[in-house]
């Protein structure tokens, strides 16, 4: 059995850990609020952008010569996967969930005999993937220095992607990120951005009485790269909200666990203290009796 001193030390150390996790939870909660706000504020832009692109791609006159970013290269051999994770740990299953999703996708690709290239955004994803897929990772981007997700960072990523696409280094591009549902639930998502998958169903019917200036094709050519930035930015916003949410609930759990541990240790401490007292008493009494 551990000595009284040892127990005392352990209780103190668990208590200070609890303090830290509690503080981290508070910080995450505050950041979550902000991240959620900006995720919500960013929505109208990406929605409008999506709508316009949908309208344009419907109205495009020459489907054969449509911009490659929309229609793809016609092949489906080389897949580029953008895995977006956080730069910091201690956020529960946030990063592992994305990685798991990405890995199952990777193994499906390799079983189909497709070639795989990976770009990781965020250092945690790179750390986890480089062990198994190290040779596939072609680039690692990290935004450790930017405090919040911002559009410039998203543009940097999309510039790299578009450059690689123009050099025909890949045919299909998919991004992996966590979609923020609520504080407890984040859903890992795989979204294909090149060629663009147009979602039908939820779009507004607008008819074809639009005037385009210049013509559809040219607008589309200019718009599609922007759309990629927008999609990536959206993923970044969702990711940062998810990260804070995941961290908050992870830290909440940790705080609770630490509390339970302190309780358990305190009981053990009291018991062994009592045992020591009893032992001493027995020694005194038996010493007195022997006289």
């Amino acid at each position, binding site marked *: 059995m551990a000595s009284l001193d040892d127990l005392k030390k352990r209780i103190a150390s668990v208590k200070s850990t609890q303090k830290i996790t509690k503080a981290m939870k508070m910080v995450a909660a505050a950041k979550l609020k902000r991240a959620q706000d900006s995720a919500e504020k960013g929505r109208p832009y990406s929605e409008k952008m999506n709508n316009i692109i949908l309208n344009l791609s419907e109205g495009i006159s020459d489907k054969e010569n449509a911009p490659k970013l929309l229609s793809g290269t016609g092949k489906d051999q080389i897949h580029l996967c953008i895995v977006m994770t956080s730069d910091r740990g201690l956020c529960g299953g946030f990063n592992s969930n994305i990685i798991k999703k990405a890995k199952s996708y990777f193994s499906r690709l390799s079983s189909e005999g497709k070639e795989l290239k990976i770009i990781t955004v965020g250092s945690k994803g790179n750390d986890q993937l480089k062990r198994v897929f190290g040779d596939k990772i072609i680039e690692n981007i990290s935004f450790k220095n930017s405090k919040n997700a911002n559009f410039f960072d998203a543009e940097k990523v999309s510039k790299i992607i578009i450059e690689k696409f123009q050099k025909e280094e890949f045919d299909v591009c998919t991004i992996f990120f966590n979609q923020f549902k609520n504080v407890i639930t984040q859903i890992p998502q795989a979204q294909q951005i090149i060629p663009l998958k147009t979602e039908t169903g939820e779009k507004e019917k607008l008819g074809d009485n639009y005037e385009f200036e210049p013509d559809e094709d040219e607008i589309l050519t200019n*718009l599609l790269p*922007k759309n990629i930035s927008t999609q990536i930015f959206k993923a970044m916003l969702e990711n940062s909200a998810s990260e804070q949410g995941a961290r908050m609930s992870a830290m909440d759990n940790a705080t609770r666990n630490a509390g339970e541990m302190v309780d358990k240790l305190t009981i053990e401490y009291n018991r062994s203290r009592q045992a020591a007292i009893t032992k001493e008493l027995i020694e005194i009494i038996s010493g007195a009796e022997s006289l």
Partner: protein
Amino acid sequence: MSEEFKLEVVNPEKSFLSKDDVTEVVVPAFEGEMGILKDHISIISFLKPGIIKLYSKSGEEKYYVEDGIIEFKNNNLSILTSSIFNIKDMEKSKIDKMLRVAEEETAKDNISDQAKYLIDQKIEVLRTIN
């Protein structure tokens, strides 16, 4: 009949501006400046660096944009842009800095003609505000 229509300017981070009493908006569309009044035909176009002029009851406002897309439909004008500034809030030092960056960019020789054209436009506009 009122001559007003709705305007919404959004950038990736937030809804930048929303007004429902504008009477005229002049935007720097790619093929030249374009004035939009109420009941304009539905249109989609994109912007080059320039100045958006906005007329409403409360007077005239000017915004500097670098790029963007506009969509006009059912008397709703949406402007999507990633860089927009109210000219009133633009300090001279900031404009100078933007000018310098743009001038450096245009001096490079590995940029495409279109990019060069856009940057030259930007420089011109920045000079006029300055």
